[in-house]
């Protein structure tokens, strides 16, 4: 059941107007669309090409919004949603694959191969997700900035506009998050031995 453009537009508008429930409805629609697009991109691009979230989200956005003229705000917010979604998709898939490797079938999420990072990065993706969750406990906005940057491929200016903060602040948050995350990641890999 492909979502109609108008439906997505309505949800997006509702969401930008403060209706948080709209987001819950929006997510699965967009996720489906992302998968479709990603699959197509991977068919046309040569094998071994890595997933470019920006390209992916761009496509999804254009597709979902149809020909309608849109304002910057909702577009940025859309990217925000997409970033979060891509993170979930990647992490879920990594967990799924790890679980499968261990012989269990804990998760049965039908995921598209196209979203997968190389298998050896599964542990890293999961650890990064955990670290971001930990960071969110300390500073939710900072965690969000990293998410937008890494999983959404957003530029600093875009993040600034989305979060309604200065670009320099975004930059500083990003720069200070990196060492923190690196440390957490090195700890988690040390724990795994």
């Amino acid at each position, binding site marked *: 059941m492909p979502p109609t453009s108008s439906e997505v537009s309505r949800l997006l508008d509702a969401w930008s107007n403060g209706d948080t429930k709209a987001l819950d409805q929006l997510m699965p629609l967009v996720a489906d669309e992302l998968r479709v697009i990603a699959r197509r991109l991977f068919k046309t691009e040569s094998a071994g090409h890595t997933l470019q979230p920006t390209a992916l989200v761009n496509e999804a956005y254009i597709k979902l919004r149809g020909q309608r003229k*849109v304002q910057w705000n909702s577009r940025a917010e859309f990217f925000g949603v997409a970033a979060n979604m891509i993170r979930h998709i990647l992490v879920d898939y990594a967990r799924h694959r790890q679980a499968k490797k261990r012989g269990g079938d804990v998760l049965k999420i039908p995921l598209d191969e196209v979203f997968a990072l190389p298998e050896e990065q599964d542990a890293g993706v999961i650890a990064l997700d955990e670290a971001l969750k930990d960071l969110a406990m300390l500073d939710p906005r900072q965690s969000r900035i990293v998410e937008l940057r890494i999983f959404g491929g957003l530029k*600093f200016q875009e993040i600034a506009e989305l979060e309604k903060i200065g670009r320099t602040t975004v930059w500083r948050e990003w720069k200070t998050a990196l060492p923190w995350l690196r440390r957490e990641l090195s700890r988690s890999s040390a724990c795994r031995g």
Partner: protein
Amino acid sequence: MAAMTPELWKRAKELLAAAQELETRDRESFVDEACQDDVALREEVAELLEYEEPGVGILDIGLGLLRPPESREDGGLDDSGAGSLSALHEGQRVGPYEVERVLAEGGMGTVALAVREDDFSKQVALKLIKPEKLSEDLLRRFQMERQILASLAHPNIAVIHDGGTTEDGLPYFAMEYVEGVPIDRYCDAGRLSIRWRLELFLKVCSAVEVAHHNLVVHRDLKPGNILVTAAGVPKLIDFGIAKPLGAELAAKSLATAPGTTPMTVKYASPEQVRGKQINTATDIYSLGVLLFELLTGEAPYPLDSSSVIELARVICEEEPQKPSSAIRHRQETHSADSADARQTAATPSRNRRGESRTSDTRRISRRLAGDLDSIVLKALRKDRRNRYSSVEQFSEDIRRHLAGLPVIAREGTFVYRAGKYLRRNRRWLATASFLLLVVLASAMMKIRADRQIERVKLDNLRAENQANMLSGLLKNLFIKAFNPDEAQGGSLTASEVLDRGRELITADLEGEPELLAMQLEAMGMVYEELGRYDRARPLLADSLRLRRRFYNGDHPLLARGLNNMAACFYRAGDDRRAEILYREALWMRRRLGQEDIDLAKPMSNLATILMNLGKYEEAEEEYRRVLESRERVYGCESTDVATSLFSLGTLFYVRGDFEAAEAPLRKALGIRSQAFGPEHTKVASARSTLGRILHAQGRLEEAEEHFAAVPELLRKRLGEDHIQVAFTKRDLAALRLDQGDPAAAELLLAPALRVFRQTKPEGSWVIADAESLLGACLTTTGRYEEAEALLHRSYRILREQRSERAIYTRKALSRLHELYAAWHEREAPGDLPPNEPITGS
């Protein structure tokens, strides 16, 4: 970090951010001070600072995959501005246009498909500057592209409609929307024949031609910028980095710093990757790459490296393969690996059977061999002077090929082929042969220059005929010599080449003594250049004999023959014969009206010969004449004057006049340092000689200062085993011995002597001089027997080669005396000349 709380993190983060702004070395003290006695905070920040550098974890490596494509490594603030979509998005209105969709994002702008609001059927390609890239320079380039496109009206160049500024103040222009595919894909998809591909390519050439006529260089010719419409019309669409050639325009508008020029490396010419001056030849090169690809589906070089430096090296140094071999090569690789998606006319359908593919490949390879190979390679020459001189010439050659006429590209390919053949065979013979080529070429040029003078005397037509014959001969010779198919065993030595040449020449030039003389002379000079004086001499002598017979009395060519012969003897070390011939040559050239300044080189050589022969007064006179004429013509501070001063100082030193030697050497050193900078080898040699002079004056410390500055400099420039480096070691060894450290002297001398023995012929005075020094070391350490043999031999050689009066000979003699003075068991032989004091003149 169990105790980590949002509050603690907030403070830690602030300190971390502040510390990140500081230099690494200041960070620790800053953190210490800022935290005062808050140990937990300090430890936290200090620890985090250790994770400042990117590591190998997923954050820095794995997720590189997920970074935005344009993000900088440091993720700095320059990665800023609105996203690319903010420049253009569908539905957006730009002037009278409405954007339908983004077509492409280039380095500086976005191209979108748009329609006119008042006429939806009219599609245009809208080009806009990306707001985040906006800069004065970009704005200039953008406006320039607009201007350029407007000035170029050609069916194969996209037409510009209009332009203006968006509501946000960004400039844009609208041009013809070319609904087409890149030319390479077009050719492959249609499996076009070679002829079709060439026809298509010719149309591209005609577009580039028009640009060049309008003094515009495209600089970025590549398939992506050449779209072919469904009607089969190729169109040049992007002049984004094009450059106007007009001097006044270029200076003002395009101060493109080397290295900052955006371009596509695959199609970039050597001059482009080197950041050198760009001209129309640059486009010819890119067209060459394009043609190569269209014909073969391959790049001229394997450009699979990801390193820009490596790519640049390949482009600047590696010879492209022939298109015809590229096809064969492609066949070989691809028959093993059929996964390649690209198809060209050259590689027939993947569905067909292997045999037919092989035969098709052979057929195409044969089709490309010869003309097309030559045409493509001529466009791809590293040195742009060797490429086609214009796009017209390039396309004309293709047309000639299509019409079955002989092509320009194959003229003169023998030299090129020879060069390539030589480069493949990196043996010394190859090097020698290459030298031979160079020398022959320059000899040819000299001959032609002289021929200009000759014209007065010679009937023009006859001169023309002779010149043609001559070049025909040379060509013949080289085709025979360097064609690997004709050279047995694939490797022809330089001597073999010349031997064949001699046969050819004498057979072909019966009754043409002038020409025969020239040919013999040219060949003789080649041998001379190769260091084969034994072979050079008879050739030069024959040439000279012919000329003596042919020209009655003075003649420039006869004078030149004498000069060449003299130079040959000089370089072979036969000073006596060289002196006679140089004198004759110089007299004749003076009678023919040449001035001292024209004769500076042979006069200097004569002076050196006179010095070697111990005729110091005459040598000085000759050197001074050269010096005076150079001072008069080039000025007192010129490097030529420095050369003369250097020679004069050396002469004074050799004759033992150490006080007089110092001033000219210091002056020469000054001029050379000024002219070449302190690191030049010519500065080093002046320093060495000055050091020797000071050493001879007994000013050991000053000498050492000069010596000390030299070896490092030379080693860096020339390598450890260069003879000049060996000279400095010898000089320092001599100094060490006089400082009373024979062990150090011997250590320095041993490697120097090894180099001399490797590079100089047996019995050379240079070796003798060093051996004499070694003998002195041996005397000092009491190894008299060894010393005696060495000292006698070196004294004998030096006396023969450098006259009794030369400093070297006198030193060798005094070392012999020192030996017998120290060695009580042995008496000096009765015929040993008495010792002369060396200090003073």
